[in-house]
């Protein structure tokens, strides 16, 4: 919003008024500082977001989108009309047959929302969950799909959702990054591009915490440097860096200045943030922070370490972060790409994530934080009702990429709990009612923060860029708002 102002302002003040005036002006409200809370376009419904990104594309058909007809048609070919012009990564369309789900589905909560037996704990939260079953995207490969889900389009060098929101609103907490990334298990195919700042200044990029039980290092000053000297030292550092900015005009220096100041504030705020010792043993148990990896089956993408414990800790850390005003927390877990061996693999991942995510929703609710915190559960696309077949394969044990239809969960933060929105046809092939494009979902997410996706823009190379594609007319899904 203030971007042009900011840039013009900086370059003119840098070349005109000079460094000293600049350092003074840096503190003015007109400056689009990442750590200054800014006004939204209209009254917001949520303040924070915990975006749990299940990279690799979880099978909606085995988790949320119950299709009894698909089970009936198991092994049968599907209507050729539906296949016309459809894209797949692996599937042989001509010979493919439908594959029912081996999961047991049942209805939960006041609304009778459907969940499979893979997510019994999430099912218990159904009255708080809004389930969108009619999502669709343009991308059918992982990295492009992940980019579209996080950044609006499948492009490098463009900002992610968390960057846009922090750019638009600033931070509620001066002492922690406004955008924190927590990962567990093997990295996603998108890697750091999923929390990129793109053309926004680099202090809007997500800050990745370490995996495991020491998420942040080097928080203490070296012995013999008391806080007041740290403070005077950083004051000097800021002035010198500003002087150098006025000579080079490199915005990376401005980001570095902000990062040093934030680092200083984190020194007091972060130890307490990552210290779980004050959490009750009940809380730790609810989240499953001390769980061991199961011995049997699954987990081919688990990477090094104990993914179960790491994922649980990340969910708990996310609550602690939003409690302290961190605007956007991205919890990323890869390895939902189940082309084969679907049953044991998805069970492994579901057991890993079901308990801690449900614990998170309940915990936020008990603390009165769910109203102002949006929790999102999403992958980059869905999986096919067709079994993945390949010449020479004995049996179909997995599903292929399916950009046409998938399911996303939202909870809290101004969305209607107990609402199942949109539907797919009887086999889960295409959205039937109320299709929601990824960009519509993003427009809605911004709307919940009080931001108009067409107004939250930044001028880059002469174009007003935004999170949603500028060539597509995206809409806010008003029906799901409280």
């Amino acid at each position, binding site marked *: 919003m203030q971007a042009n102002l900011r840039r013009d302002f900086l*370059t003119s003040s840098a*070349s005109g008024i000079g460094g000293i005036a600049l350092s003074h002006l840096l503190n003015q409200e007109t400056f689009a500082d990442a750590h200054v809370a800014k006004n939204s376009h209209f009254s917001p419904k949520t303040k924070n977001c915990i975006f749990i990104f299940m990279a690799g594309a979880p099978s909606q058909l085995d988790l949320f989108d119950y299709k009894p007809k698909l089970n009936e048609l198991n092994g049968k070919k599907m209507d050729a009309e539906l296949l*016309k*012009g*459809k*894209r*797949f*990564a*692996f599937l042989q369309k001509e010979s493919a047959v439908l594959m029912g789900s081996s999961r047991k589905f049942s209805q939960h909560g006041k609304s009778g929302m459907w969940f499979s037996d893979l997510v019994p704990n999430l099912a218990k939260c159904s009255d708080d969950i809004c389930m969108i079953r009619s999502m669709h995207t343009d991308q*059918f*490969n992982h990295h492009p799909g992940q980019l579209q889900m996080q950044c609006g389009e499948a492009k*490098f060098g463009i900002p992610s959702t968390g960057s846009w929101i922090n750019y638009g609103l600033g931070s509620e907490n001066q002492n922690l990054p406004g955008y924190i990334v927590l990962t567990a298990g093997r990295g996603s195919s998108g890697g*750091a591009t999923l929390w990129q700042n793109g*053309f926004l200044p*680099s*202090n809007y*990029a997500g*800050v990745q915490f*370490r995996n495991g039980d*020491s998420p*942040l*290092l*080097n*928080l*203490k*000053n*070296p012995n*013999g*440097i*008391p806080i*007041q*000297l*740290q403070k*005077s*030292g950083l004051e*000097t550092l800021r002035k*010198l*860096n500003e*002087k*150098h900015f006025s*000579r*080079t005009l490199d915005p*990376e*220096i401005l980001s*570095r*200045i902000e*990062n*040093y100041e934030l*680092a200083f504030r*984190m*020194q007091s705020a972060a130890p307490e943030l990552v210290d779980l010792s004050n959490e009750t043993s009940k809380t730790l148990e609810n989240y499953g922070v001390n769980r061991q990896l199961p011995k049997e089956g699954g987990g081919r993408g688990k990477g*090094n*370490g104990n993914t179960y414990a790491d994922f649980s800790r990340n969910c708990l850390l996310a609550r602690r972060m939003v409690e302290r005003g961190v605007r956007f927390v991205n919890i990323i877990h890869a390895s939902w790409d189940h*082309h*084969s061996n679907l049953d044991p693999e998805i069970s492994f991942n579901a057991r890993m994530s079901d308990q801690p995510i449900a614990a998170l929703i309940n915990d936020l609710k008990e603390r009165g934080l769910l109203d102002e915190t949006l929790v999102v559960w999403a992958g980059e696309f869905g999986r096919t009702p067709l079994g*993945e077949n390949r*010449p*020479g*394969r004995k049996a179909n044990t997995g599903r292929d990429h399916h950009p046409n239809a998938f399911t996303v969960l939202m909870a809290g933060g101004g969305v209607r709990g107990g609402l199942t929105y949109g539907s797919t046809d009887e086999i889960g092939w295409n959205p039937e009612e109320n299709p929601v494009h990824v960009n519509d979902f993003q427009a809605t997410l911004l709307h919940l923060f009080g931001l108009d996706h067409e107004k939250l823009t930044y001028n880059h*190379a002469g174009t007003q860029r935004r999170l949603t594609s500028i060539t597509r007319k995206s809409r806010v899904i008003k029906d799901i708002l409280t």
Partner: protein
Amino acid sequence: MTITFTILSWTDLRAKIDFEREVRPILINKCINCHGGIKAKSGLNFTKKNTVFNKLNSGEIAVTAKSPLKSELFHRITSTDESDKMPPDKPLSQKEINTIKAWIKEGAIWPEHWAYSPLQKKAQNGSSIDEIIVAKLKEIGITQSKIANKRTLIRRLSLDLIGLPPSKIEINNFINDTSENAYEKLVQRLLESKHFGERWARHWLDSARYADSDGYEKDNIRPNAWIWRKWVIDTINNDMPFDQFTIEQISGDLKKNAKPSQVLATAFHRQTLYNREGGVDPEEDRTKRTIDRANTTALVWLGLSLECAQCHDHPYDSLTQKEFYQFYSFFNDMTESEIDYESDFLEKKSKVRVMKRKDRQTFIFHRGDFLQPMKEIKISSTTPSSLPQINADKSKEWDRIDLGNWLVNVNNPLSSRVLSNDIWTKLFGASLVQTKSDFGTRSTPPEQLYLLDHLAEKFNQLNWSRKKLIAYIVNSKTYKQSSIRRKETDEKDPDNHFYHRQNRFRIEGEIVRDIFLSSSGLIKHKIGGPSVFPPIPDGVAEQSFAGNFKWKTSQGDDRYRRGMYTFFKRTAPDPNLITFDCPDANVSITKRNISNNPIIALATLGNEVFHEAAQALAKRIIKNLPNDNDQDRIAEAFQLCTSRKSKPEETNELMTLLKKSRHFYAENKEEAKTVIGKYSIENIEAADLAPWVNVSRIILNLDETITRE
């Protein structure tokens, strides 16, 4: 009629439709999902030119040059008949239809994919880096930046070529050398420095996914991995031509009467992860390693991501699954082996892990599953058909020697482009090709294609001499430009795609360490040798999954070696490397991320290694200038960190900090002793030395200290 009108005005405005930029993106985004590598419906595959211009299964021809009406493609995209129209779901926009029509009318020019086609050598585009850059800048209406000052130049060159900041004497010598070729002499001196090999070896180690341990849960250490690293350093210092450098690493073991060093070279492919967990099927892991070798080779030399083709035909590159396994087959004859290695730098014969030949039959794996070999199809080693076909005697079975020769054949434009772009990227912090790791058919041609091709040709002409190509680039005015931003370029070239200036960027993690250690005088130079163990925070080594690893912090000189020698334990790497975006060594990386965040600030402010540098820097300036005044000492420290003199207002700021620090330590003598640590000076009070530690650490934390300008 309206349409015709639109088309006329369109063609009036546009001289020629650019297939790569205008037509291919439409085909890729809208058509290839059904008419591409995975499914060539009706025989039409837009990744294969011949299917587009020849008769299809139906007898129709998709595209007839100059005649939209005789082109089935045009009929289908304009059809209103539900059963005919293409694409079936979402029709093309009018603009897209117009583009395709105009393109067909103009003759349907379908050039080879830019990256696979022969190097373009058009004299009118310029015959040097500067001419090509200036011509393009003229087109967009901006000028080159002026040449940077001498201090910036020597620091830039030193960091780029040897990864170390210039010493005070070196700076003075350069400034005082007023001869015409002072700069060229400096370039030559740096290229001859033994540190050149270290700097450029580290780049290569990124590509090679080098580490000192196996990876996975067991993550056993590889005690002699460094011997190959030393080979890389020496080889680069000796400027082994890149073609030979390639061939020895790909196939050194196959050479007749191969020298031990040639066999050692094959350890490039010994760097893959190795899973020694109990339950692992050894054949499965071997297959994984082989796939990694194929993928790494394709990425590093060909700029291609082959991964997806291991399970299925590549969705958008014209690469079939069969072709993937034909490429994989080159590496399927490799097996892990060990040799006794002797060298001057080794005290005694040492066992080194290398690769050797072992014959195996290759099969396509269904979905990449090693348990499902398709035995009915025999696979022999060969390169993908869409890639340049050159001098290939395909009458005999190819092996890795042929592969090596093919990769670096002067007529292979793809690898010449990829490799010269790699060198350019290291010298500008920016790739000429936007997607550095993807030169495949989805990649758009670079804005500076002529420049890229010029460099590729130059690399060939210079007989693949890495040093000579670097000299050629850094001697250009384009390289020497100032990196200061200019407001007037914001609209026309905001991201500096056209190189109207140099780039300014934070240097890599290893070099951050090297600068801290160099500025403070702590650094110990020894080229090569086993990896070392600088201090790391408590608890990091314990993260290693099996808990089988003790980080025994090095004592003596080894505590202060360059960052590239830090022991790299894959499951518990030194956070001082990872925080600054050093790769995790799990897969090959050809361009690093550069993050800028508070975690980095916390490291350089609080980490033990970096604080020790501040203590040593304080001691150093006082020792260097025993009788000097405060301003001179500040200037000394400033120059040691940034290679330039501080300006009076900068010195004043630091003086203020010095005074505040003095005030504090005068009253807090114990704190003073603590902060100087073991860096006390005889006859100097801790309270007099301590303020300098605080000043030194701030200078070390300047943006400029860790930035190459």
